[in-house]
């Protein structure tokens, strides 16, 4: 038998109260694209941290090219020839792209580099980055690509990618897949961590499935149906989301006319003449690669961004451009930002206090006093109704996983009975079960006559739940078209900002 590039044997890792990995094994051959599939909390991240030397296992062995190795730190793994792209970015915002890449490289290599050395690499992998741009100015999607670039620059023998496509456009994803296949053909092994079944079936040669910290199967994903894979991962059949049946939309509830916002200091993209109507009983999707003004659009609609004319945004005919977020909420407009911790929730505060954050003052505090018992009950209600995994309504928001916190936030805003809900990346980082629940909640809102604006980079998500779709590019918003009329080539053109040629 050929020597494996990387082999993990009988890895066990215990955290207080949790057995994160229980006798897990994984073997990756040279040039193989190997998927590690599992729900959030199945132990994927722990396993990869152990492989990469960021964590020490309680038991088990890491074998590299046939030799057992003791990894004391990620540095050791990098020295051996492993690269990793983390799901959560570890970039220096005050440094440029090139500087960030250099920092991840061995000193001996870094000393030999000259200005401009990165450009061919960026070109080759079609990452579309400016080496001299400051990371602090980049969007989430672009930062992800910096992470990828950083790993590729070290010419790894094995590359670990943790949920890399969650913020990529379809073209970028296709380009990434081509790159990965090319790397694999050159002999580099790829470990691809994901819970996106379609991607795994499309890309990977083999697939190790984890569930609750144990290996449940090692399969060839190309020969399996999506349902079979999902069943392996979840342990039971997946609940299908009731896809939104088309229905006649009602009157416009949110009207935006020529909304322009200058680019914030240090960023390139502002909003230019954004206009759209959101009607009662519909979900309008906003697609596009992040960094094209989506964040600003959400802030402008939520009321966090100020300084625009009153009548560029109208809610049921009423100008609200100058109202602050709490006033807009009182009128029925609620927003869910992309950043959950620190913006959507206060990390150190309990879920009950975080319910209070966006509650109407009259309901939250009678005569200025906070009703703690009512808040705890409200938080418990959201936990139960939206399947949030939290042991108590008082646990700090920080202690919840990303997907759970997202469910909590969606539940919290829906609890406020909005007429219009604006949400950015509502399922980013959520596993299949959580995503399905969130989508169902959004569709229920729509079917009850509410309206939702969903800003997302996940096209599958948008095509699954939206009635109409528009695209953001360069701070402008395309006309919205019905889902049935959306074509892949058209979306590709629109994402580059070329929609004026199309007779929409």
């Amino acid at each position, binding site marked *: 038998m050929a020597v494996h590039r990387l082999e993990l044997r009988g890895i066990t890792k215990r955290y207080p109260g949790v057995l994160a990995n229980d006798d897990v094994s994984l073997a990756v051959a040279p040039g193989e694209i190997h998927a590690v599939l599992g729900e959030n909390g199945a132990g994927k991240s722990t396993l990869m941290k152990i492989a990469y030397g960021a964590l020490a296992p309680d038991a088990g062995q890491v074998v590299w090219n046939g030799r057992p190795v003791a990894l004391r730190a990620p540095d050791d793994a990098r020295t051996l020839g492993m690269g990793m792209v983390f799901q959560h970015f570890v970039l220096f915002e005050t440094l440029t792209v090139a500087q960030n890449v250099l920092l991840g490289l*061995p000193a001996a290599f870094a000393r030999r580099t000259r200005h401009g050395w990165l450009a061919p690499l960026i070109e080759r992998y079609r990452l579309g980055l400016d080496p001299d741009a400051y990371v602090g100015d980049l969007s989430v999607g672009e930062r992800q690509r910096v992470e990828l670039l950083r790993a590729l620059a070290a010419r790894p023998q094995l590359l670990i990618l943790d949920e890399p496509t969650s913020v990529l456009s379809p073209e970028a994803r296709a380009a990434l897949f081509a790159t990965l296949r090319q790397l694999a053909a050159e002999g580099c092994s790829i470990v691809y961590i994901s819970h996106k079944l379609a991607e795994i079936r499309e890309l990977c040669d083999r697939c190790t499935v984890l569930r609750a910290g144990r290996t449940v199967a090692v399969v060839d994903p190309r020969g399996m149906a999506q349902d079979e894979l999902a069943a392996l991962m979840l342990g039971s059949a997946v609940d299908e989301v009731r896809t939104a049946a088309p229905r006649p939309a009602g009157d416009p509830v949110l009207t935006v006319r020529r909304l322009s916002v200058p680019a914030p200091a240090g960023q390139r993209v502002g909003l230019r003449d954004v206009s759209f109507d959101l009607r009662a009983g519909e979900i309008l999707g906003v697609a596009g690669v992040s960094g094209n003004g989506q964040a600003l659009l959400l802030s402008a609609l*939520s*009321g966090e961004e100020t300084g625009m004319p009153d009548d560029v945004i109208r809610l049921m005919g009423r100008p609200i451009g100058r109202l602050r*977020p709490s006033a807009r*909420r009182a009128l029925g407009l609620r927003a869910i930002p992309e950043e959950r911790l620190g913006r959507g929730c206060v990390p150190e505060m309990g879920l009950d206090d975080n319910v209070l954050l*966006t509650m109407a003052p009259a309901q939250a*505090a009678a005569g200025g*006093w906070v009703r703690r018992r009512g808040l705890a009950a409200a938080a418990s209600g959201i936990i139960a109704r939206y399947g949030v995994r939290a042991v108590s309504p008082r646990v700090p928001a920080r*202690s919840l996983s990303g997907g759970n916190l997202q469910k909590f936030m969606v539940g919290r805003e829906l609890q406020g009975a909005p007429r219009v809900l604006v949400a950015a990346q509502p399922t980013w980082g959520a596993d299949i079960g959580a995503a399905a629940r969130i989508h169902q909640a959004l569709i229920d809102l729509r079917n009850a006559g509410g309206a939702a604006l969903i800003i997302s980079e996940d096209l599958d998500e948008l095509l699954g739940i939206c009635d109409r779709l528009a695209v953001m590019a360069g701070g402008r918003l395309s006309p919205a078209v019905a889902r049935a009329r959306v074509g892949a080539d058209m979306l590709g053109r629109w994402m580059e900002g070329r929609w004026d040629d199309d007779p929409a």
Partner: protein
Amino acid sequence: MIQLEARASASRLATWLSPLAALVLTMLGGALLFVILGVDPWQGLRLFLVEPFNGLYAWGELAVKAAPLALCAVGLSICFRANVWNIGAEGQLVAGAIAGGGVALLAGPETWRGYVLLVMAAGMLGGMAWAALTAWLKDRFGANEMLVSLMLTYVIQLLLGYLVFGPWRDPYGYNFPQSRSFDEAALLPTLWEGTRAHAGLALAFAAAAVAWLFLARSYPGFRLRVVGAAPAAARYAGYSPRQALWTSMLACGALAGLAGMGEVAGPMQRLTTSVSPGYGFAAVIAAFLGRLHPAGALVASVVMAALYIGGELAQSRLGLPASIVGVFQGLALALLLLGDTLVRHRIRWRRPAPAAR
């Protein structure tokens, strides 16, 4: 190589034990200091740990010092919770002393006994006015409140000097830089016969209770905490950072002003060039020792008061320099910060990564 690793979660118990550990270590450090200075460490520590609590009069003195400390520390806790770094409580205290003292000087022998309430109100307004200056400069021009509040402290101290050397100097005071002593009606009542403990202590307890209610139970207090803990979340919720700034600064100004008024209308009974041995600064330490919790601020203020008294005793009985109090305060704060770092992080001793194989 020593590395600090963030802990996944800080233990609640450790969070509360950290100030205690800091105090114990401060005492050990103090003992070491006494040994170096050639003083019997047991005798030295006795002055700090036993003497301040020995007898009714000693408790009274403790209350005299703890009251202004606690008032300032409670006010500062509110500021720090709002992420407003007001370190000029000392200046606000002096402003309260000047305003309260000015009103107190207007009283005569025949004045109504309730007049002291006016003195109190004047003290609060004085402190608030001085705090408002910092708040306004930050609000209007974005000036750094830490610098502004600190610098304004020296300004108001000079103003106090001008007043007691000039217009308010007691004409029968043998040219000492101090005002005439206040009349009975302008003085805070004494709490217990035989001690100097005055009504300021009751005010401190009341302030802590109200501050706790405000922070933990009121909606404006919640908004203030959100602004302090997560500014982006406050923006998203629609809470005003300006409101948090003004509320916390004015609250702290009022309490510090009350403390200053309590000094001049309490134990001093007149205005002099120095109305506080740095209570406003020591209160910063007390606020952090008390975990920015009003009740904690009360307890920590008693500790800081004992340090002051121990320091005074060390001067009079052992002939040690006055700066011993500052050394103890500094030691306590440094050790507390160290302890808090260890509560949130763990130290990992790591050999440098092995060379390439």
